[in-house]
């Protein structure tokens, strides 16, 4: 069972919800926000394994290349470019589709590994933790996300997503069975939640909402949810102590008064999805 925690808008509390939930439920934690992963700050796992994420990029054998430029014509990502005397390779634009090798009549193209990121695996108190880290300067996070999520076990996995509603999140949702959408009761939070809801609906999976930084029990998010028949799984009050604990990298369930929030969230999740 894979539950993804996503948001649309950044900084609404995805990592707060997923790390505390993982600790409470003794679930596995997977940080798929590979551009800026922060969950390990809170869970402090002992890292046991580091695996390089590699993609295949073309390498051209200059002796074999007859400069027919079929490869540059074929590549739709401008990763191969024609110059007067050779083929130039822009490997950051390569999607590793394999097309250039197929079109090359002279067997001049081979693929070589290029490191684009790293996956770290470890464990915290009784549960497994993993995360992906995109190399700085690499534009495409999807290969790291795919590698990270490719071999998840059958137990309960909580996946901390990246913000937004584009390809990174799409690829994370490919691996999810259910989704928790974390948002805040502001105009921004509502606007971006609506986009996230539309995205999750494309995947036909069950989902529910958690509202963070709540100052009024009935707010623009709960109204939106009741209008659209979306369940609100829980609300977390706006509380300066939470902000302070978060800033120091502390889990909030270590304090009795916040433990109940996650106790309630956990039992609702169990009842609905497990």
């Amino acid at each position: 069972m894979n539950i993804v925690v996503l948001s649309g808008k950044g900084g609404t509390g995805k990592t707060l919800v997923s790390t505390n939930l993982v600790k409470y439920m003794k679930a596995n934690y997977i940080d798929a926000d590979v551009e800026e992963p922060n969950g390990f700050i809170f869970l402090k796992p002992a890292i046991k394994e580091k695996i390089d994420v590699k993609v295949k990029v073309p390498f051209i054998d200059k002796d074999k290349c007859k400069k027919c430029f079929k490869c540059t014509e074929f590549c739709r990502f401008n990763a191969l470019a024609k110059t007067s005397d050779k083929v130039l390779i822009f490997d950051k634009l390569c999607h590793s589709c394999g097309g250039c090798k197929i079109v090359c009549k002279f067997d001049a193209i081979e693929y070589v590994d290029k490191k684009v990121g790293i996956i770290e695996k470890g464990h915290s108190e009784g549960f497994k933790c993993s995360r992906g880290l995109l190399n700085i300067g690499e534009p495409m996070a999807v290969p790291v996300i795919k590698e990270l999520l490719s071999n998840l076990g059958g137990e309960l996995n909580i996946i901390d997503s990246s913000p937004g509603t584009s390809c990174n999140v799409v690829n994370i949702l490919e691996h999810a069975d259910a989704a928790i959408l974390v948002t805040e009761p502001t105009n921004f939070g509502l606007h971006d939640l609506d986009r996230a809801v539309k995205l999750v609906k494309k995947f036909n999976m069950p989902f529910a909402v958690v509202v963070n930084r709540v100052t009024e029990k009935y707010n623009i998010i709960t109204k939106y949810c009741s209008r659209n028949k979306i369940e609100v799984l829980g609300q977390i009050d706006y509380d300066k102590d939470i902000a302070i604990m978060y800033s120091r990298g502390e889990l909030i369930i270590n304090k009795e008064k916040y433990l109940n929030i996650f106790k309630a969230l956990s039992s609702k999740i169990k009842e609905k999805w497990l």
Partner: protein
Amino acid sequence: MNISVLSGKGGTGKTTIAIGIADTIKGSIKVDCDVDAANMHMFYKGMQISSEEFFSGEKAYIDTNKCIKCGRCKNSCKFDAIENSKIDFLKCEGCGVCSLVCPSNAIVLSKNKVANILEYKLEDGYLIKADMEIGADGSGRLITKLRDNAKKYEGVNIIDGSPGIGCSVIASITGADIALIVTEPTLSGIDDLKRILELTKTFNVLPLVCINKYDINLDMSQNIEEYCNENKIQVISKIPYDKFVLKSINELKPITSYKDSEAGRKIIEISEKILNIYEKIKK
């Protein structure tokens, strides 16, 4: 001049600050490059002056009348986008390999609509934004197009970027003169700040750091300042936690329009400082 407002970590206050700066620098062009969670337009009631469809890349289509179900396309697709002679558009990256290997010419590639690009004339300046299709890819190219469209207008470009360090952010930094990086005094904020500062080094851009809500954790703010000093990066401002920020988001008015807002005052100051810094670097 192009000012890109970025952060690494999400939710640190990029949009609030970008809107505040855009409100202070008269005639500015607001370019919302946080294309999959765009919020800038919510602050303005402008007159729409153009709308254009934006296509990026392609998607494969299988003609079922021609398809002989040989399975070569599925076997060659590196993105697992083909199942039972059907294309999964969310997975298809439009590389064209399936069409290349198809023996019966059953697969064609057709251009892929990613967004509508909308431009508005505002009371003060212009706004350029994209209505991006949900779940679409190609945000890097879309952002490049938004920045290009902005070039036809005279004025300072204020670019509201997306969180992260990937293609969207790379496209938002490209061509910027100043990258204003908004961070917060949390361990997550510091971690993410370091990654985005590392990224800005690979561009010809001046990074400036702004610590938002600095008084939430003074020790952490000091750590950020020390880190920036060690790396010779200017901390341009420290903005205190301010209840007016929430009011500004709820009322959809620039934070700089609240006379009693301390954050608003700081953002006016940042705008002036940036203009001065730009004058200096131009010389």
